[in-house]
Protein backbone atom coordinates (compact mmCIF):
# COMPACT_ATOMS: atom_id res chain seq x y z
CA UNK A 1 0.00 0.00 0.00
CA UNK A 2 1.31 3.41 -0.94
CA UNK A 3 1.52 5.90 1.90
CA UNK A 4 1.74 8.89 -0.43
CA UNK A 5 -0.65 11.61 0.70
CA UNK A 6 -0.46 14.43 -1.85
CA UNK A 7 0.02 17.92 -0.54
CA UNK A 8 -2.55 20.36 -1.91
CA UNK A 9 -2.14 24.12 -1.66
CA UNK A 10 -5.54 25.77 -2.02
CA UNK A 11 -5.71 29.51 -2.60
CA UNK A 12 -9.14 30.76 -1.48
CA UNK A 13 -10.63 34.05 -2.60
CA UNK A 14 -12.11 35.77 0.44
CA UNK A 15 -15.27 36.60 -1.50
CA UNK A 16 -16.16 33.01 -2.43
CA UNK A 17 -13.63 30.28 -1.61
CA UNK A 18 -13.22 31.29 2.02
CA UNK A 19 -16.95 31.42 2.87
CA UNK A 20 -17.36 28.08 1.04
CA UNK A 21 -14.58 26.65 3.22
CA UNK A 22 -16.28 27.98 6.35
CA UNK A 23 -19.51 26.32 5.29
CA UNK A 24 -17.71 23.03 4.63
CA UNK A 25 -16.22 23.25 8.13
CA UNK A 26 -19.61 24.01 9.72
CA UNK A 27 -21.09 21.01 7.95
CA UNK A 28 -18.09 18.94 9.12
CA UNK A 29 -17.42 17.80 5.53
CA UNK A 30 -14.37 15.74 4.64
CA UNK A 31 -11.13 17.46 3.67
CA UNK A 32 -7.87 15.95 2.36
CA UNK A 33 -5.31 15.23 5.10
CA UNK A 34 -2.44 17.18 3.58
CA UNK A 35 -4.02 20.54 2.79
CA UNK A 36 -2.63 24.07 3.09
CA UNK A 37 -5.16 26.87 2.76
CA UNK A 38 -4.04 30.30 1.60
CA UNK A 39 -6.68 33.06 1.83
CA UNK A 40 -6.34 35.90 -0.68
CA UNK A 41 -8.46 39.08 -0.85
CA UNK A 42 -9.25 38.39 -4.53
CA UNK A 43 -8.10 35.63 -6.88
CA UNK A 44 -6.62 38.43 -9.02
CA UNK A 45 -4.05 38.92 -6.25
CA UNK A 46 -2.47 35.59 -7.20
CA UNK A 47 0.55 36.04 -9.40
CA UNK A 48 1.94 33.34 -11.68
CA UNK A 49 4.97 33.15 -9.41
CA UNK A 50 2.83 32.17 -6.37
CA UNK A 51 1.50 29.18 -8.30
CA UNK A 52 4.94 28.05 -9.39
CA UNK A 53 6.46 28.68 -5.96
CA UNK A 54 3.78 26.52 -4.35
CA UNK A 55 4.77 23.65 -6.64
CA UNK A 56 8.48 24.30 -6.15
CA UNK A 57 8.24 24.37 -2.37
CA UNK A 58 6.36 21.13 -1.85
CA UNK A 59 2.86 21.08 -3.34
CA UNK A 60 1.81 18.08 -5.43
CA UNK A 61 -1.19 20.05 -6.61
CA UNK A 62 -2.39 23.66 -6.50
CA UNK A 63 -6.02 24.69 -6.55
CA UNK A 64 -7.52 28.17 -6.73
CA UNK A 65 -11.05 28.65 -5.42
CA UNK A 66 -12.35 31.73 -7.20
CA UNK A 67 -15.65 33.47 -7.89
CA UNK A 68 -17.64 32.57 -11.00
CA UNK A 69 -16.71 34.56 -14.09
CA UNK A 70 -18.43 37.96 -14.28
CA UNK A 71 -19.03 37.70 -10.55
CA UNK A 72 -15.76 39.16 -9.31
CA UNK A 73 -16.11 41.81 -6.60
CA UNK A 74 -13.18 43.60 -8.21
CA UNK A 75 -14.55 43.06 -11.75
CA UNK A 76 -11.49 41.59 -13.50
CA UNK A 77 -9.72 39.61 -10.76
CA UNK A 78 -10.76 36.14 -11.87
CA UNK A 79 -10.17 37.03 -15.52
CA UNK A 80 -6.59 37.96 -14.67
CA UNK A 81 -6.27 34.76 -12.67
CA UNK A 82 -7.32 32.75 -15.71
CA UNK A 83 -4.51 34.28 -17.83
CA UNK A 84 -1.97 33.69 -15.07
CA UNK A 85 -2.99 30.08 -14.58
CA UNK A 86 -2.74 29.66 -18.36
CA UNK A 87 0.79 31.09 -18.29
CA UNK A 88 1.77 28.90 -15.32
CA UNK A 89 0.51 25.85 -17.20
CA UNK A 90 2.65 26.76 -20.22
CA UNK A 91 5.69 26.90 -17.93
CA UNK A 92 4.68 23.59 -16.30
CA UNK A 93 4.56 21.96 -19.73
CA UNK A 94 8.13 23.11 -20.38
CA UNK A 95 9.25 21.65 -17.05
CA UNK A 96 7.34 18.45 -17.76
CA UNK A 97 4.78 18.78 -14.96
CA UNK A 98 1.28 17.47 -15.55
CA UNK A 99 -1.44 20.08 -16.12
CA UNK A 100 -3.73 18.40 -13.56
CA UNK A 101 -1.47 19.70 -10.83
CA UNK A 102 -2.95 23.17 -11.23
CA UNK A 103 -6.63 24.00 -11.48
CA UNK A 104 -9.14 26.81 -10.93
CA UNK A 105 -12.45 25.86 -9.34
CA UNK A 106 -15.30 28.36 -9.31
CA UNK A 107 -17.47 28.43 -6.21
CA UNK A 108 -20.16 30.59 -4.61
CA UNK A 109 -20.21 31.50 -0.91
CA UNK A 110 -22.61 28.64 -0.17
CA UNK A 111 -20.72 25.94 -2.11
CA UNK A 112 -19.42 24.09 0.98
CA UNK A 113 -20.29 20.67 -0.41
CA UNK A 114 -18.75 21.36 -3.82
CA UNK A 115 -15.64 22.73 -2.10
CA UNK A 116 -15.13 19.55 -0.11
CA UNK A 117 -16.01 17.18 -2.97
CA UNK A 118 -13.65 18.89 -5.38
CA UNK A 119 -10.72 18.72 -2.96
CA UNK A 120 -11.37 15.05 -2.15
CA UNK A 121 -11.46 14.24 -5.89
CA UNK A 122 -8.31 16.27 -6.47
CA UNK A 123 -6.52 14.32 -3.72
CA UNK A 124 -7.58 11.03 -5.38
CA UNK A 125 -6.39 12.27 -8.77
CA UNK A 126 -3.02 13.38 -7.38
CA UNK A 127 -2.58 10.12 -5.48
CA UNK A 128 -2.85 8.31 -8.81
CA UNK A 129 -0.54 10.79 -10.52
CA UNK A 130 2.12 10.39 -7.82
CA UNK A 131 4.41 13.00 -6.27
CA UNK A 132 5.42 16.19 -8.04
CA UNK A 133 9.00 15.33 -9.01
CA UNK A 134 9.95 18.97 -9.42
CA UNK A 135 9.34 19.96 -5.81
CA UNK A 136 12.31 20.80 -3.69
CA UNK A 137 11.50 19.39 -0.29
Amino acid at each position, binding site marked *: MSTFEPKIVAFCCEQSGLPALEMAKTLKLKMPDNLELVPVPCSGRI*ETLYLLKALESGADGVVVFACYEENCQYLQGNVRLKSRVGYAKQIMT*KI*GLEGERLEIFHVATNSGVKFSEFLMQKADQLRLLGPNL*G*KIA
Partner: protein
Amino acid sequence: MIKAEQKPFEEILEYLAPYNKILLSGCGACVTVCHAGGEKEGALLASALRMARQKIGKPLEILESTPARQCEPEFAQELSDTIGRVQAILSVSCGVGVQTLARHFPATQIFPGVNTTFLGETVAHGVWEERCQACGDCILEKTAGICPIARCAKQLLNGPCGGSSNGKCEIKRETDCAWQLIYDRSKSLGQLHRLTEIIPAKQWGVQSRDSGPRRIVREDLKV
Protein backbone atom coordinates in the same frame (compact mmCIF):
# COMPACT_ATOMS: atom_id res chain seq x y z
CA MET B 1 12.86 50.97 -25.05
CA ILE B 2 14.72 47.78 -25.84
CA LYS B 3 12.41 44.81 -26.34
CA ALA B 4 13.34 41.20 -25.75
CA GLU B 5 11.81 37.75 -25.46
CA GLN B 6 12.89 34.87 -23.28
CA LYS B 7 14.87 32.18 -25.08
CA PRO B 8 13.34 28.73 -25.44
CA PHE B 9 13.45 26.94 -22.09
CA GLU B 10 15.20 23.87 -23.55
CA GLU B 11 17.99 26.05 -24.89
CA ILE B 12 18.57 27.64 -21.48
CA LEU B 13 18.57 24.23 -19.79
CA GLU B 14 21.21 23.09 -22.25
CA TYR B 15 23.51 26.05 -21.45
CA LEU B 16 23.25 25.32 -17.75
CA ALA B 17 23.66 21.55 -17.95
CA PRO B 18 27.28 21.49 -16.73
CA TYR B 19 26.63 23.67 -13.66
CA ASN B 20 25.02 23.21 -10.26
CA LYS B 21 25.17 26.74 -8.88
CA ILE B 22 24.49 29.85 -10.93
CA LEU B 23 23.46 33.48 -10.66
CA LEU B 24 20.34 34.50 -12.56
CA SER B 25 20.69 38.20 -13.14
CA GLY B 26 17.72 40.24 -14.28
CA CYS B 27 17.56 43.92 -15.13
CA GLY B 28 15.20 46.49 -13.64
CA ALA B 29 14.89 48.59 -16.81
CA CYS B 30 13.76 47.75 -20.38
CA VAL B 31 13.37 43.98 -19.99
CA THR B 32 11.19 44.56 -16.91
CA VAL B 33 8.82 46.69 -18.98
CA CYS B 34 8.50 44.05 -21.71
CA HIS B 35 8.21 41.22 -19.16
CA ALA B 36 11.21 39.35 -20.49
CA GLY B 37 13.79 39.62 -17.74
CA GLY B 38 12.81 41.78 -14.77
CA GLU B 39 12.64 40.62 -11.18
CA LYS B 40 9.31 38.80 -11.68
CA GLU B 41 10.16 37.02 -14.91
CA GLY B 42 13.59 36.18 -13.52
CA ALA B 43 12.00 34.61 -10.43
CA LEU B 44 9.60 32.61 -12.60
CA LEU B 45 12.40 31.36 -14.79
CA ALA B 46 14.53 30.49 -11.75
CA SER B 47 11.67 28.54 -10.20
CA ALA B 48 11.02 26.67 -13.47
CA LEU B 49 14.72 25.85 -13.93
CA ARG B 50 15.04 24.57 -10.35
CA MET B 51 12.05 22.28 -10.80
CA ALA B 52 13.18 21.03 -14.22
CA ARG B 53 16.62 20.15 -12.82
CA GLN B 54 15.19 18.64 -9.65
CA LYS B 55 12.98 16.46 -11.79
CA ILE B 56 15.97 14.88 -13.56
CA GLY B 57 17.87 14.41 -10.30
CA LYS B 58 20.43 17.15 -10.99
CA PRO B 59 19.46 19.96 -8.60
CA LEU B 60 20.45 23.47 -9.61
CA GLU B 61 21.04 26.17 -7.02
CA ILE B 62 20.12 29.59 -8.34
CA LEU B 63 20.95 32.90 -6.70
CA GLU B 64 18.75 35.71 -7.99
CA SER B 65 19.58 39.36 -8.39
CA THR B 66 18.08 42.22 -10.37
CA PRO B 67 20.30 45.30 -10.66
CA ALA B 68 18.38 48.49 -11.48
CA ARG B 69 20.18 48.67 -14.83
CA GLN B 70 22.51 45.83 -15.70
CA CYS B 71 24.15 47.87 -18.50
CA GLU B 72 25.55 50.48 -16.07
CA PRO B 73 28.93 49.69 -14.48
CA GLU B 74 27.88 50.91 -11.01
CA PHE B 75 24.93 48.54 -10.88
CA ALA B 76 26.80 45.64 -12.48
CA GLN B 77 29.47 46.07 -9.81
CA GLU B 78 26.86 45.33 -7.13
CA LEU B 79 27.01 41.70 -8.24
CA SER B 80 30.74 41.32 -7.41
CA ASP B 81 30.25 39.43 -4.13
CA THR B 82 27.71 37.06 -5.61
CA ILE B 83 29.77 36.24 -8.70
CA GLY B 84 32.47 34.67 -6.53
CA ARG B 85 29.94 32.16 -5.21
CA VAL B 86 28.65 30.81 -8.55
CA GLN B 87 30.00 28.81 -11.48
CA ALA B 88 28.16 30.73 -14.20
CA ILE B 89 25.74 33.58 -14.86
CA LEU B 90 22.44 33.43 -16.73
CA SER B 91 21.55 37.00 -17.65
CA VAL B 92 18.01 37.87 -18.66
CA SER B 93 18.90 41.47 -19.48
CA CYS B 94 19.33 42.64 -23.07
CA GLY B 95 22.52 41.84 -24.93
CA VAL B 96 24.07 45.07 -23.64
CA GLY B 97 23.67 44.01 -20.02
CA VAL B 98 25.13 40.59 -20.78
CA GLN B 99 28.22 42.26 -22.24
CA THR B 100 28.56 44.65 -19.31
CA LEU B 101 28.77 41.66 -16.97
CA ALA B 102 31.14 39.87 -19.35
CA ARG B 103 33.44 42.91 -19.25
CA HIS B 104 33.32 43.24 -15.46
CA PHE B 105 33.64 39.58 -14.59
CA PRO B 106 36.15 38.16 -17.09
CA ALA B 107 36.62 34.87 -15.23
CA THR B 108 32.95 33.85 -15.15
CA GLN B 109 31.04 32.09 -17.92
CA ILE B 110 27.89 34.00 -18.93
CA PHE B 111 24.83 32.95 -20.95
CA PRO B 112 22.01 35.06 -22.42
CA GLY B 113 18.52 34.13 -21.24
CA VAL B 114 16.68 36.36 -23.71
CA ASN B 115 16.80 37.24 -27.39
CA THR B 116 17.14 41.00 -27.67
CA THR B 117 14.71 41.80 -30.44
CA PHE B 118 14.15 45.49 -31.21
CA LEU B 119 13.70 49.10 -30.08
CA GLY B 120 10.01 49.57 -29.74
CA GLU B 121 6.95 50.80 -27.92
CA THR B 122 4.09 49.24 -26.02
CA VAL B 123 1.01 49.48 -28.26
CA ALA B 124 -1.33 47.55 -25.94
CA HIS B 125 -0.98 45.45 -22.80
CA GLY B 126 1.31 42.60 -23.79
CA VAL B 127 1.94 43.92 -27.32
CA TRP B 128 5.15 45.62 -28.44
CA GLU B 129 6.11 46.89 -31.89
CA GLU B 130 9.37 47.93 -33.49
CA ARG B 131 9.81 51.68 -33.93
CA CYS B 132 13.50 52.56 -34.42
CA GLN B 133 16.60 50.90 -35.81
CA ALA B 134 19.09 53.38 -34.32
CA CYS B 135 20.23 54.37 -37.82
CA GLY B 136 22.33 57.22 -36.43
CA ASP B 137 20.74 60.01 -38.51
CA CYS B 138 17.12 60.50 -37.55
CA ILE B 139 14.76 61.72 -40.28
CA LEU B 140 11.50 61.70 -38.32
CA GLU B 141 11.17 65.45 -38.91
CA LYS B 142 10.62 64.69 -42.60
CA THR B 143 8.26 61.76 -42.17
CA ALA B 144 5.61 63.07 -39.76
CA GLY B 145 7.19 61.30 -36.81
CA ILE B 146 6.85 57.83 -38.35
CA CYS B 147 10.02 55.91 -39.10
CA PRO B 148 10.34 54.38 -42.59
CA ILE B 149 13.59 52.69 -41.61
CA ALA B 150 12.07 50.62 -38.83
CA ARG B 151 8.52 50.37 -40.10
CA CYS B 152 8.75 49.97 -43.89
CA ALA B 153 9.85 46.46 -44.83
CA LYS B 154 11.95 47.90 -47.68
CA GLN B 155 13.18 50.95 -45.78
CA LEU B 156 11.95 53.20 -48.58
CA LEU B 157 12.65 56.88 -48.06
CA ASN B 158 10.47 58.60 -50.64
CA GLY B 159 7.03 57.10 -50.75
CA PRO B 160 5.52 53.64 -50.88
CA CYS B 161 6.32 50.74 -53.13
CA GLY B 162 3.72 49.37 -55.53
CA GLY B 163 2.64 46.74 -53.06
CA SER B 164 0.97 49.06 -50.57
CA SER B 165 -2.69 48.16 -50.55
CA ASN B 166 -5.60 49.35 -48.42
CA GLY B 167 -3.13 50.76 -45.92
CA LYS B 168 -1.36 47.43 -45.43
CA CYS B 169 2.15 46.28 -46.33
CA GLU B 170 2.64 43.67 -49.04
CA ILE B 171 5.29 41.90 -47.02
CA LYS B 172 3.02 41.29 -44.04
CA ARG B 173 -0.67 41.90 -44.60
CA GLU B 174 -1.38 42.44 -40.90
CA THR B 175 1.16 45.29 -40.74
CA ASP B 176 0.32 48.88 -41.58
CA CYS B 177 2.18 50.30 -44.57
CA ALA B 178 4.57 52.84 -43.04
CA TRP B 179 4.19 55.15 -46.02
CA GLN B 180 0.40 55.10 -45.77
CA LEU B 181 0.81 56.16 -42.13
CA ILE B 182 3.29 58.86 -43.09
CA TYR B 183 1.00 60.18 -45.82
CA ASP B 184 -2.14 60.14 -43.63
CA ARG B 185 -0.47 61.89 -40.73
CA SER B 186 1.24 64.49 -42.95
CA LYS B 187 -2.12 65.21 -44.55
CA SER B 188 -3.98 65.59 -41.27
CA LEU B 189 -1.25 67.92 -40.01
CA GLY B 190 -1.48 70.00 -43.21
CA GLN B 191 2.14 69.13 -43.93
CA LEU B 192 1.87 67.21 -47.19
CA HIS B 193 4.23 69.67 -48.88
CA ARG B 194 7.06 68.22 -46.78
CA LEU B 195 6.78 64.98 -48.69
CA THR B 196 7.76 66.71 -51.93
CA GLU B 197 11.25 67.15 -50.57
CA ILE B 198 13.46 64.27 -51.72
CA ILE B 199 15.12 62.44 -48.86
CA PRO B 200 18.63 61.49 -49.98
CA ALA B 201 19.90 57.95 -49.61
CA LYS B 202 21.17 57.32 -46.11
CA GLN B 203 24.88 57.14 -45.57
CA TRP B 204 24.79 53.65 -44.15
CA GLY B 205 28.56 53.34 -44.16
CA VAL B 206 29.03 56.51 -42.13
CA GLN B 207 26.48 56.80 -39.32
CA SER B 208 25.04 53.33 -39.11
CA ARG B 209 26.29 50.02 -37.74
CA ASP B 210 27.61 49.21 -41.22
CA SER B 211 30.84 50.99 -40.41
CA GLY B 212 31.40 48.91 -37.29
CA PRO B 213 30.38 49.47 -33.68
CA ARG B 214 29.60 53.10 -32.93
CA ARG B 215 30.81 55.17 -30.02
CA ILE B 216 29.65 58.40 -28.44
CA VAL B 217 32.11 60.51 -26.50
CA ARG B 218 31.23 63.56 -24.41
CA GLU B 219 34.49 65.15 -23.32
CA ASP B 220 32.74 67.35 -20.74
CA LEU B 221 31.44 64.29 -18.90
CA LYS B 222 34.67 62.35 -18.76
CA VAL B 223 36.41 62.12 -15.39
